[in-house]
């Protein structure tokens, strides 16, 4: 008897061409102009960032565009000790949820310019953009967020966003 077959290779490859959709296309076009644009729900008034074109709470389209600030607050974060991205700073570095001023949802973003052990909830940060000639239709136009030097935000100002 020959050896039983325990493994077989069956290579699978599927190609997709994904469209960003109306809302995210507007968001990406904004980033090409150096602007961060969310969308406001007409019912609950929350500003979604990045916008997905709908309010998941109310199930209605979010058509009103709202430009938000490039400053915000780190609501929560984690320290990354494994390098897996060329774009990231040297390990250990910080991945944070950044609630931009004027937005009601936090962005997942790199937090740099601060030692990992010094990052904290409530830290005030601002966007650091990539050089303008490297901009494309991408969230990567914002390189990362760095501390503004302002006093930390009061817990009550972001506790609803955790």
């Amino acid at each position: 008897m020959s050896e039983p077959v325990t493994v077989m290779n069956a290579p699978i490859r599927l190609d997709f061409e994904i469209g960003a959709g109306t809302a995210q296309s507007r968001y990406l076009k904004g980033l090409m102009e150096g602007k961060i644009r969310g969308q406001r729900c007409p019912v609950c008034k929350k500003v979604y960032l990045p916008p997905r074109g709908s309010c998941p709470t109310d199930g209605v389209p979010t058509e009103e565009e709202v430009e938000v600030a490039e400053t915000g607050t780190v609501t929560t974060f984690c320290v990354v000790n494994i390098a897996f991205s060329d774009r990231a700073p040297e390990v250990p570095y910080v991945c944070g949820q950044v609630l931009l001023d004027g937005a009601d949802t936090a962005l997942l973003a790199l937090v740099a310019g601060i030692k990992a052990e010094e990052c904290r909830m409530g830290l005030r940060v601002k966007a650091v953009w990539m050089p303008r000639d490297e901009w494309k239709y991408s969230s990567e136009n914002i390189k990362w967020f760095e501390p503004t030097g302002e006093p930390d935000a009061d817990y009550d100002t972001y506790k609803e966003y955790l």
Partner: protein
Amino acid sequence: MRDVAIVGFAQSKHLAADTHRNEVEILMPVVAEAIERSGVDRKSIGFTCSGSCDYLIGAPFSFVQALDAVGAWPPIQESHVEMDAAWALYEAWVRLQHGDLDSALVYGFGKTSMGDVTEIMTLQLDPYYLAPLWPDTVSLAALQARAYLEASGKSERDTAEVAARSSRDAASNRNAVRSGDKSADDVLAESPVVSPLRPSDCPPVTDGAAAVILAAGDLVPRLTDRPVWIRGIAHNVEPHSIGTRDLAQSRSTRAAAEKAGVSTGKIDVAEVHAQYSHEELILSDALGLTNGVTMNPSGGALGANPVMATGLIRVGEAASRIASDGASRAVAHAAQGPCLQQNLVCVLEG
């Protein structure tokens, strides 16, 4: 069984490629329209169930994002089937049988333009023997078409007649993506894609969505004086391996039709989920439909095929014929899997 009625139906104006909108953006107005037509209060809907396929976009759990279109707050009772949304309708119908809820929202969506759906569906085949050979869906359908033609004595002209009639009927369906005043001769003059199937025998690539509102109990008379009742609904499945099945007929459709009670009364109109022209003939045999039945007046899946919503649309189209076109009894059918592997049959009455 508790009587359940279809009280609302809406579908997108389907497109061959909706390049601007994502699935949620396609789905949201459709869900809103179905709810509005039904008159049910969105926040009072008891159960929500959807049908879609993550493989179409190539992203796991993409169906969860689709809940954005529903407004799932305060938390809702919700479920999903990785199948055509006709099976989501079946689940909702079962859920309403429990008797504690009176309404359900069912929706399905598919954006097939983003990939090659004929290859994507290869991954539903068994992963050891068949899928590694990459038999695309058109090739498998052609095998079934050939088996049917040889067993039945029908000819390619018969399937071409189905394709041509579907094309003509789709011309009066504003949601169709492909239609035209076509004859069987026109179809037969086309070069085969995979013999014996020609382009008009095969479904068009379609992006779209559909939604249905179900109601039961005291709620029904409060919403409408013309409910369309689900009198019978059943689904059956055949072996996964197409080599073990008689492809010339659809035993599972026949079994489901019997359970759903298709033959207990005269059928005026049928909407069957035939993605290929020969499938309509196989299904018509299995459902026991005779010449007096109006087949696929919407143009069927040959007019628009938003995969994972196509079967639900058959139910909605059949219900619409009763609600507004004077039909009194209709049968809707949905299919899933390679070569009509699994079939759902739904009998509707005014």
